[in-house]
């Protein structure tokens, strides 16, 4: 059964909106063409096909992975660099006192 009556908000979580906006912005700044991204996204969705795809969380997760791979292909960044910054955020979340904004230092 297709869950057509479920929550139809465009973005169900802030990070869905964030990755969407980042991708559109990069495409508008000509970092890549939209069709290049579409190809990467289609490929990623195909790769993840074994999982149940609800068109929300898992769809946007494929979107994140597609964008990461495209940026690596375009030599904008590397996998190691992305992991490095991700770890900085993890550690900031775990170590920032409650009530204070979570921040990372200069990268």
């Amino acid at each position: 059964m297709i869950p057509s009556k479920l929550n139809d908000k465009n973005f169900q979580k802030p990070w869905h909106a964030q990755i969407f906006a980042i991708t559109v912005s990069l495409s508008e700044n000509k970092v890549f063409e939209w069709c290049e991204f579409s190809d990467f996204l289609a490929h990623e969705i195909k790769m993840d096909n074994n999982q149940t795809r609800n068109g929300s969380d898992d769809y946007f997760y494929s979107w994140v992975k597609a964008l990461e791979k495209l940026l690596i292909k375009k030599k904008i960044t590397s996998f190691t660099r992305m992991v490095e910054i991700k770890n900085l955020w993890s550690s900031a979340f775990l170590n920032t006192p409650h009530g204070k904004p979570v921040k990372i230092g200069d990268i």
Partner: protein
Amino acid sequence: MIKKINTKKNNTENIHHSHNILPEEPELRVKALETLLVNKGLVDRNTLNELIDTYENRIGPKNGAKVIAKAWVDVSFKERLLNNATKAIEELSYTGRQGEHMVVVENTYEIHNMVVCTLCSCYPWPVLGLPPSWYKSDEYRARAVREPRKVLKEFGLLLDEKIKIKVWDSTSEMRYLVLPMRPKGTEELTEEELAKTVTRNSMIGTGLPELIND
């Protein structure tokens, strides 16, 4: 979903309480990407916020509904729409991202059109906004082509067996919009009132226009 991290409880008084909650993996990866790209000057945080606001609040199926209503009342516009949808839609200024290469397919008493993107989620943003979750779901993408009649039934749309269903596969090079049939009994309605009967699903083909009873 927020993951709770198990931490050892420390009895000392002056130990601070950390957030102790770690956002889920994709959220952290998005944060990392954003940090990296802002730092490189490739994206700007204000632009990102504006984009989100635009797609959350300003662009949506109301634009497409106006296109459809105009086609119902203006024969020459309808002709232009069916011949060159991108150009005709431009007349109403609904242009921009993902609004290129538009094709409008018309429902008739013999044919019902339905749109899917089997590869990912290609969709005409300027006239429909962003696609709903079900449009991006595996199930819809796979079954719309395989068993469209059954899928339409799940959407509450029971079509006469005599009506042929045509499924159109959108790509980044070709985006489809369904022109539903004007509902019966709407002869007295204005273009603006007609637009209110056009639902998003009727322009994807998984629904029909709906008359609103005041």
